[in-house]
């Protein structure tokens, strides 16, 4: 792999996840197929794709919420699928954390919001200066601890809950943060604050963020590297600037063309039918038969054909 560097902290290699349902005549769904990429400290990697493209599945695989069907996930050189014991898992979650898509469902409605901190302290941290540490973490995400702690989730807004979760991840000083559709549930005015906070923390603490999103603009705004997913396949990968300036895969091109611009009214001709996209992608793969995932320039790779 050309863009492999020494300092990658997590390496995803040929990751595949197949869902099977039913014992005797299983229905097979290939959610993720043959995906490889690297995560480096202090960088934000955005994973862009339509719904159902497998991006959330990748996040769950990294978090060990699902078991991969094939491929490897190496964290600091060690395969995490081998971690089975409780202590090993704890050790792993001490360094790899996530913020989930929906802040409202991320909190158990029956408990006060402090529970998320209590769990983290009980499992990972010693309880000295617990209060002080929580206050500090909350203040760094611009929340007033006095007004947040001891409340029930339904008494807080989505933005507050989401920032609470970021504060929770901060307490742990993690290496890798999986941010799944981090701000899709927030309103426009809180979005930018949360995003800036994330970038700032990433650069300051040297953590590596996997930013899962379906919004290209967001991806461009925050990320250093971009991965484009289409139907479970990683179709384009590279530094954000190169991918956005020179998209090669037909699906990526379509994505860029379909972003509505501020200051332009709607345009009927700018519609992309799914069948058209499927057709284009198939044609592209056929023209490039025999080629697989290739680097077209430094830090820019494209899937030329899915039958290699």
């Amino acid at each position, binding site marked *: 792999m050309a863009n492999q560097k020494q300092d990658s902290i997590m390496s995803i290699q040929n990751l595949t996840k197949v869902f099977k349902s039913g014992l005797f005549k299983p229905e097979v769904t290939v959610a993720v197929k043959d995906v490889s990429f690297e995560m480096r400290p202090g960088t934000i990697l955005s994973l862009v794709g339509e719904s159902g493209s497998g991006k959330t599945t990748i996040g769950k695989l990294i978090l060990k*919420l699902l078991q991969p069907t094939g491929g490897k996930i190496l964290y600091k050189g060690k395969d995490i699928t081998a971690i089975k014991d409780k202590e090993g898992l704890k050790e792993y*979650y001490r360094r790899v954390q996530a913020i989930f*898509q929906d802040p409202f469902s*991320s909190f*158990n409605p*029956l408990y006060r919001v402090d529970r998320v901190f209590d*769990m983290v302290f009980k499992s990972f941290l010693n309880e000295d200066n617990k209060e002080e540490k929580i206050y500090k973490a909350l203040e760094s995400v611009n929340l007033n601890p006095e007004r947040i702690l001891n409340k029930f989730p339904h008494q807080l807004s989505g933005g507050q809950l989401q920032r609470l979760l970021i504060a929770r991840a901060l307490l742990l000083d993690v290496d890798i943060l999986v941010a799944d559709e981090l701000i899709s549930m927030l309103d426009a005015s809180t979005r930018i604050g949360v995003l800036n906070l994330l970038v700032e923390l990433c650069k300051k603490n040297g953590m590596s963020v996997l930013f899962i999103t379906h919004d290209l603009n967001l991806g461009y705004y925050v990320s250093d590297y971009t991965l484009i997913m289409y139907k479970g396949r990683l179709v384009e990968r590279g530094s954000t600037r190169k991918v956005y300036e020179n998209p090669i895969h037909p699906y990526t091109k379509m994505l860029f063309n379909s972003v509505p611009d501020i200051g332009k009214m709607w345009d009927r001709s700018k519609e992309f039918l799914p069948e058209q996209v499927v057709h284009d992608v198939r044609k592209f793969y056929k023209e490039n038969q025999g080629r697989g995932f290739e680097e077209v320039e430094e830090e820019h790779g494209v899937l030329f054909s899915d039958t290699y």
Partner: protein
Amino acid sequence: MAAREFWKRHENLYFALTNKKVLIGISIFTLMILLAIFGPALTPYSYDEFAGEGYLPPSKDHLFGTTLMGKDVFTRTVYGLRSTFAVGFIAGTIATLIGCIIGFLAGYYGKWIDEALMMITNIFLVFPLLALLIILAAYLPYRGIMTISIIVGMTAWPWTARAVRSQTLSIKNQGYVNLSRISGISVFRILREDIAANMFSYVFMVYILQFSGTILAAVGLEFLGLGPTQGVSLGLVMQNAVNWNAIQLGLWWWAILPGLVLTILVVSLYFINTGLDEVFNPRLREM
């Protein structure tokens, strides 16, 4: 202000206490419990004693009349009600517990554990339970209320297990379960605090249904003559009535009145259940 805060925190309790069905159900149910507790004190007779002349219709001395041999039907009914409550409580608890544990484990772990547990559950579901109960009961020479309760409880859990499993499956995918998992929380705590706690209302309703279901199942057994060998129960009273051709001989009170008590009890549980359904499910609330 304090009262308002309290009702806001306990919204479900408020809706439960203002729901007509729940209120009617709870009133009747409480009345039945009181009857079972204090009934024996209200009657001067004991349930096996020949209390008076036989063939007496309901009167002041014998509220539910007497049997052919002169036993007091009211006394037998209230003593029977006691054991019926005991069966409902013990068997209902056993069935709900087993169902919940199997449902939680199958739903949470999935994969082969789910397949295996659901296979066992399905076998129990399609198994001719009555035949099993008859064989089991016939093998036990001495049968008390406890034995009957355990037999009924051990066979009543499968549908609870299935229902709890499907609920667990849907809660398992909530964000907070995933968050607990990546917080290094033990599976037992996740099951208890994240899954079971959020299903409390559901499990409570399942328990009520199991309570009435196991009562009816036990009465059915007793009616077939497989009831407790000692003591008295509602099913036993009715079985005796049928054995002695009570209806044909005109002693309608002997069979009908205990049956009526049982019916009212089960109906009150049904009222509580449908009422609570409205309480816990906001879409069903009458506004």
